[in-house]
Structures are given as structure tokens and as C-alpha cells.
């Protein structure tokens, strides 16, 4: 439970600095800062001509805590839940010990930037991938906690979403260690801060909403009604409405269940489009029901046309009237 907007880099390690571990004596050359959070700073570094990421903190315990999580992830077979852990050590500098750990460098844009570049058709694909990873993470007894687009990197090709910051990752049943308000169900008055799969699924649904509202928004009253309205007023989200709302209300017990529902909703949202196309092409309707729909569509079309016609006439007449008045004045 740390906040995520605090202090800019507690230390400023310049590029070119060589960091040597006190215990394992590995030497790392700092290349640049990749990011910082409440629990430390992450640097891109070089080790034996290989790019790695180093996370440093003057709070040794938070480093140890994250290392514990990454070690436990490593035991989960055939998965890529977080970055893989390469080394843990202390750096003795200026008479102080700075704890750090070294991990695989996961390179790519974050989830929101990726979707903004490539288009909204990627949203569901990436969320499906994410839910797959979450399912494995939950099965191994953890909850990711601080799930947000900034912590999700899309690597590739082939494009694959990866979680990068395990600072909020909490053992199931405990209180969530770290979160960001917008993605936190407690903030929206929609649940507790107990680490359980539903907590992450809520955040996943908020990430979907976030793709349409990249600047996020703040709570007015809290509760489901406020979020429902945001979903219903977005044409990109409306097709996933049921899935998003169920996740927000904690109706899914597992990531698999939500994933399944998301897949279903995509198949369903394809269906009406396809059938309406068929309807337009084939004149003899198969059933009475579709006739009604079609007629209604035609009526609506005619209505729309009528409105356009009226607007045109009004515009032309007012134009002529204006010219007439103008002529009179001169």
C-alpha cells in the first residue's frame, strides 16, 4: 500500500556509473533511468553486453519483498508472469548500502500507447492475454495488486502483454500492498482491499475503460452507476458492457471465467453485424421478426433522408431571404 506519485528519484545515478555488487561481485554499467515509483528507481543497464533492468531502493526491505515475489513466480512452470530475476545484491556507495535486484529488460510501449498507435481492435486481444496470465498468477496464490497500463508492456512481434512491476503483488487473503486509486475497487466503493482474484479483475475492467478515457476521471459519487454511464456512452466499450460491468461488480470468481465471457461477447458482437449484412442482401426475409427489423431500418433511413432534405431546403431559403434583405438594404 504505497502511493505512486511520491518523490522523484531518491538518488540520481548517472549513466556510465559502474555498480558492483557487494556479495556476488557482478558489475553493471548504468545506461539510463527507465522509471521510478514509491519503492525505488529502475535503470537500464549493461551486463556482459546484455541489456538488463536494475531496480534500486534505499529501502532494502521493499527490494527483498519484490524479490520474494519474483522468485515465487519463477517456480510457476512455463509462464512469464513478471520479468525473470537475474541477480540480487547490495551496492556499497558513500558508506551506505543500496539494495538492488537485476531482472530481464522488457522492452516495448505501455498498454495505452500501444492501443493508441495500433487501434482499439487490440484492446480485447491484449486483455485476453492479460487474463490468461492473471489466471496463472492467481492459481499460484498471488494477486497482482497494482494493475494499471503503466505496469503493462507490450513486447513483440508477435505482440504480447507483460506485467513489469510486482511492487503491489500480494499473497491472496492479505491486504493489498500497493494500488492506484483509479483501478482500485475500494476507491470506487465497489469492494474491499483484500487480495483476491476479483480485485485484479476489477482493475482489468478499469483498464478497458481507461483505453477509451486515457486521461482517466475522478470519482464523483462512486458506485456502479457512475462507471456504467462511462461504459454506455462509449461506442468502443458498449459491446463489452456486460463483461466490464460484471467484473466491476465482482461477479467473476476467476480470470478464466472473465476471459471466457469476454470471448463470448466478441463472438456475439460479431453476430448481429453479420446477420444485418445478410438481411440487406437477401430480399425474401426468412422470418417475420427480421422483416420487422428491416422495415424499421428502412423507415429510419427514410426518416433520416427526410430530415436532411428539410435542412437543405431551410438552408437554401434562408440564404435567398438573406440575399433579398441585403438587396433591399442597398
Amino acid at each position, binding site marked *: 500500500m504505497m502511493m505512486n506519485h511520491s518523490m522523484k528519484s531518491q538518488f540520481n545515478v548517472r549513466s556510465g556509473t559502474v555498480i558492483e555488487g557487494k556479495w556476488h561481485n557482478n558489475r553493471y554499467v548504468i545506461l539510463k533511468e527507465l522509471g521510478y515509483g514509491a519503492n525505488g528507481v529502475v535503470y537500464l543497464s549493461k551486463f556482459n553486453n546484455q541489456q538488463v533492468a536494475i531496480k534500486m531502493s534505499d529501502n532494502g526491505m521493499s527490494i527483498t519483498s519484490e524479490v520474494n515475489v519474483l*522468485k515465487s513466480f519463477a517456480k510457476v512452470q512455463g509462464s512469464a508472469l513478471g520479468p525473470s530475476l537475474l541477480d540480487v545484491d547490495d551496492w556499497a556507495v558513500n558508506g551506505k548500502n543500496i539494495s538492488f535486484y537485476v531482472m530481464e529488460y522488457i522492452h516495448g510501449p505501455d498498454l495505452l500507447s500501444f492501443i493508441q498507435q495500433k487501434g482499439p481492435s487490440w484492446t480485447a486481444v491484449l486483455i485476453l492475454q492479460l487474463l490468461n496470465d492473471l489466471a496463472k498468477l492467481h492459481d499460484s496464490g498471488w494477486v497482482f495488486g497494482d494493475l494499471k497500463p503503466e505496469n503493462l508492456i507490450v513486447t513483440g512481434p508477435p505482440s504480447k502483454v507483460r506485467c513489469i512491476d510486482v511492487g503491489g503483488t500480494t499473497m491472496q487473503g*492479505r*491486504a493489498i500492498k500497493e494500488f492506484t486509486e483509479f483501478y482500485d475497487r475500494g476507491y470506487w466503493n465497489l469492494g474491499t482491499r483484500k487480495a483476491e482474484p476479483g480485485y485484479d479483475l476489477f482493475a482489468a475492467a478499469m483498464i478497458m475503460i481507461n483505453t477509451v478515457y486515457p486521461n482517466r476521471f475522478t470519482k464523483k459519487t462512486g458506485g456502479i452507476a457512475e462507471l456504467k454511464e462511462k461504459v454506455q456512452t462509449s461506442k468502443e466499450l458498449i459491446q463489452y458492457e456486460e463483461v466490464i460491468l460484471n467484473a466491476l461488480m465482482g461477479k467473476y470468481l476467476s480470470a478464466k471465467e472473465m476471459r471466457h465471457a469476454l470471448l463470448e461477447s466478441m463472438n456475439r458482437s460479431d453476430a448481429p453485424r453479420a446477420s444485418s449484412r445478410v438481411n440487406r442482401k437477401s430480399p425474401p426475409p426468412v422470418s417475420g421478426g427480421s422483416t420487422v427489423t428491416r422495415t424499421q431500418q428502412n423507415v429510419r433511413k427514410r426518416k433520416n433522408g427526410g430530415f436532411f432534405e428539410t435542412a437543405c431546403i431551410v438552408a437554401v431559403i434562408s440564404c435567398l431571404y438573406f440575399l433579398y434583405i441585403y438587396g433591399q438594404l442597398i
Partner: protein
Amino acid sequence: MKTGTLKQILLITDGCSNQGEDPIAMAALAKEQGITVNVIGVMENDVIDEKGMSEIEGIAMSGGGVSQVVYAKQLSQTVQMVTRKAMTQTLQGVVNKELKEILGSSKTVEDLPPEQRGEVMEVVDELGETVELEVLILVDTSASMKQKLPTVKEAIFDLSLSLNARSGDNRFSVFVFPGKKKDVEKLLDWTPRLESLNSIFAKLTVGGITPTGPALREALQYFKKKRSLRGLLSRDDESFYEESV
């Protein structure tokens, strides 16, 4: 490992004290009695001056706690972060002391090789999850705090939400200063739930001086009074006393 109950005072203020005892000394007194003092400086359009800042840092430092100065809109996240951070800090101290007894001399967790720290951290995490916690929230209600009070209320609720997600028991009490007649006034007695805070906060009046030092001293008394009262009751009794404000 037995840790007893963690005791914290959370002071929410927006400036310097101007009456009574030195609050930094009172915070040191709290620390001597095993009570941690955390301070949050809250700003809105105003900025906390140098003097206020050094007092805020000073109180937290001599009270063995954590301090943070934030804008009102970040208050919720900060309150729970500061509380958790101070808890971990205290528990680390307890664990370090135990380690010293086991390993001898001046060994701390940091002196262990990284491979062995993991298990120690697991102990600290486990304690943080299960330990009993008492937080006395002390809110500055001098005139300049007026428009910040709704945010303060939100933040206190949010804190109870975070802490009640733990499996350990929590008790909160809320005090404001200056009080109507005294330096400090009790709004809410020790309770695990804070729902009743809504109606109480609505009736709150602000104004007057900022007697931070006396308020801290009174708050300490309250911890002690409660403990001696509790001694009379059975241990497993839910210590939830109603007293009219």
C-alpha cells in the same frame, strides 16, 4: 513472536503550532511510551511555510514515525501509505531486535546475505498482516483547515478500508484540536468501524488557535487511560467504549 499492539498517532495538520508545549518534545514523549507519531501536512491553495515544514518533519522524526506533505487531493493515498510505512518500520525494528538476540552483536537484516533476507521479510509481512493496531487520528481544525475537512473525512474512511482488509484487528479513535472548551476534543471513541464519522464531521466547527503540543500530550493520556481501563476488563472483550462527546 509476540509484538503486542502497535500504537500510532496520526496527526493531520496544515501548519505550525502556536500555543502550549513544544509538539516535537511531546512526540518524543510518545515514542518513549511505545507510541509512534506520524504527521501529514495537507495543502490546498496555500503552501506550508519553512517553519511549518520543519515542525512537521521534527514531530515525525522524534515520534519515530513518517511524515509527508501533500495536496488535499492526494490525502487518501498518503494517509494509508504513511500508516503502513510506519507499521512496517516498527515491525522491522522488532524483528531486528530479535535477530540481534539470535545472531548477537549489531547484526540487522541488512547484514544478512540477500538470499537469507527473504524469510525475514516474510515474517515482517506476516506480522504486518496480523498484528493488532490502534490508530489515534488527531485532526487540526483551526480556521485554515475548514475547506479541507471533507477530504480529511474521506481519507480517514479510506484508511479504515485499507486496514480492515488485514486479518489483524484495528481500532481507531478520532480527536480534533482545538476543542470547544479544551485543547483537544474527542469525536469518536475506540472502534473498528468509522461509519458514524459522517454525521459527526458534518457538525464540526473550526476556528481558533493551533495547540499541537497540548493536543499530542492529551492524546497520549488517552492511550494510557484506555489501557488501564482495559486492564479491568477481560482481555478478549471488544474494547469499545461509548462516551458522550
